């Protein structure tokens, strides 16, 4: 199993380690609930070094990446990041990604751990023009500092003016004496920063941020909290909510598709699907009583198994069980009653508006 450069730092902080996409990752330290609430009210620090980084360089880097992704990259400034996706010709997902436009000849793609090799291969297969494509994942550790007190914790560790770094912008600079790419992004629905740093410097940055954040109540946070945080704000997870069988329209990711940017991989299929109208939609639901809907639990409408829970978990902010499931469009409306089959029980549930949680 693969280990991040912070493996020993996690053991020192008494993390419970699990296998995630072939990586030995911390699932929790003090406890998933405590870590979740720390991120909502103060700050949490995540090791997300398992995420992959693919570099695209060369005179045609922008044009090539524009063709291979569904959002409009041409609108990005240098120092701006964008949530986007790699699509198959059928309009379904190869992966959802964040693109960093360092400059027109140099783009950095942050991709899901489980898709890293597949994505790099996919890009190489479709390479055109004067571009160099390189899986640079081993050159980066990635830390995510998330929560309302993130800026106040990070600012003393850097000369960068974090106040002038807006959401989905990034800059290069030193943090805790290490060269970092600092971006105002994250996967929790809170304010925060992601730090891309060399593996050799990762442990020092990790420890310095945790030390600096101590008085503010920072917690090292694991994958369990990361999952409940992202689900509450309806950030999708590749492999659960989107994959090679789902498209942007039904996933509710139409906002990352720019049909007017010119030709791109998957555009024709997306055009056709939009004309026909998607048959299903990814809807949010909550369990009305006790019990927790889990990933892959059957979803029943009027007693008939209709689909499966894409993502299901407990919501610490709402103190109830929430989830996402693909439903026929006419059923994917707030108020629609469902049942979730969890082991021997049928849990009553109702379709609700998403996100389940909004930052105050």
């Amino acid at each position, binding site marked *: 199993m693969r280990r991040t450069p912070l493996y020993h730092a996690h053991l020192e902080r008494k993390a419970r380690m699990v296998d995630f996409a072939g990586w030995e990752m911390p699932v929790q330290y003090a406890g998933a*609930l405590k870590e979740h609430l720390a991120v909502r009210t103060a700050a949490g620090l995540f090791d997300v070094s398992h995420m992959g980084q693919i570099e695209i360089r060369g005179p045609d880097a922008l044009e090539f990446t524009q063709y291979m992704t569904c959002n409009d990259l041409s609108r990005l400034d240098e120092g701006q990041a964008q949530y986007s996706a790699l699509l198959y010709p059928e309009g379904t997902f190869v992966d959802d990604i964040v693109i960093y436009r360092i400059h027109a000849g140099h783009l950095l793609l942050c991709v899901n751990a489980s898709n890293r090799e597949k994505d790099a291969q996919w890009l190489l297969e479709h390479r055109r023009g004067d571009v160099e494509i390189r899986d640079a994942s081993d050159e980066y550790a990635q830390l995510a500092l998330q929560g309302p007190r993130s800026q106040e914790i990070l600012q003393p560790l850097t000369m960068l003016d974090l106040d002038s770094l807006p959401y989905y912008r990034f800059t290069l600079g030193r943090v805790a004496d290490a060269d970092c790419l600092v971006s105002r992004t994250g996967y929790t629905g809170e304010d925060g920063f992601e730090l891309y740093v060399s593996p050799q410097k990762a442990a020092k940055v990790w420890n310095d941020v945790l030390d600096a954040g101590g008085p503010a109540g920072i917690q090292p946070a694991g994958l369990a909290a990361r999952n409940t945080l992202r689900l509450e704000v309806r950030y999708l997870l590749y492999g659960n909510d989107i994959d090679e069988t789902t498209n942007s329209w039904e996933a509710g990711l139409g906002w990352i598709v720019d049909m007017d940017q010119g030709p791109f991989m998957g555009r024709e299929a997306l055009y056709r699907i939009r004309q026909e109208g998607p048959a299903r939609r990814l809807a949010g639901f909550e369990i009305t009583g*006790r019990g927790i809907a889990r990933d892959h639990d059957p979803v029943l409408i009027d007693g008939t198994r209709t689909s499966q829970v894409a993502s299901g978990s407990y919501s610490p902010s709402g103190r109830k069980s929430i989830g996402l499931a693909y439903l026929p469009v006419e059923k994917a409306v707030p108020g629609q009653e469902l049942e979730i089959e969890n082991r021997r029980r049928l849990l009553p549930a109702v379709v609700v508006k998403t996100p389940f949680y909004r930052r105050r």
Partner: protein
Amino acid sequence: MTIPEGLRYTREHEWIRVLEEGRGRVGITHHAQDELGDVVFVELPRTGDELGGDDVFGTVESVKAVSDLYSPVSGRVTEVNESLEEQPELVNDDPYGEGWMIQVELSDPAELDGLMSAQEYASYVSEESGH
């Protein structure tokens, strides 16, 4: 690892404390709650329900997993811990005390002999986790 003396233990990680003649209080062990992580729901039987030994008497759900609760003995449920409805975290905070789950009237106290002592449970747990 916290395993109090004087209690009897099951292979499913429940404990039973014999209170007075013929009655026992049941919960899950420190090890069990640690494995589960943060408990958020506990489903318990109703007072008066009859349980057979090894019957599932409820479920405990944490953020990451759900687990059945097995009755260590047969008997009638005389009390359930209502506090767990509002404060399921008591199972994590105090598994052998405030986090208890049900009280039963034992139909056959001899069944207790089939359960593990603290020492036996300790070696069972360390074997199970492969240490």
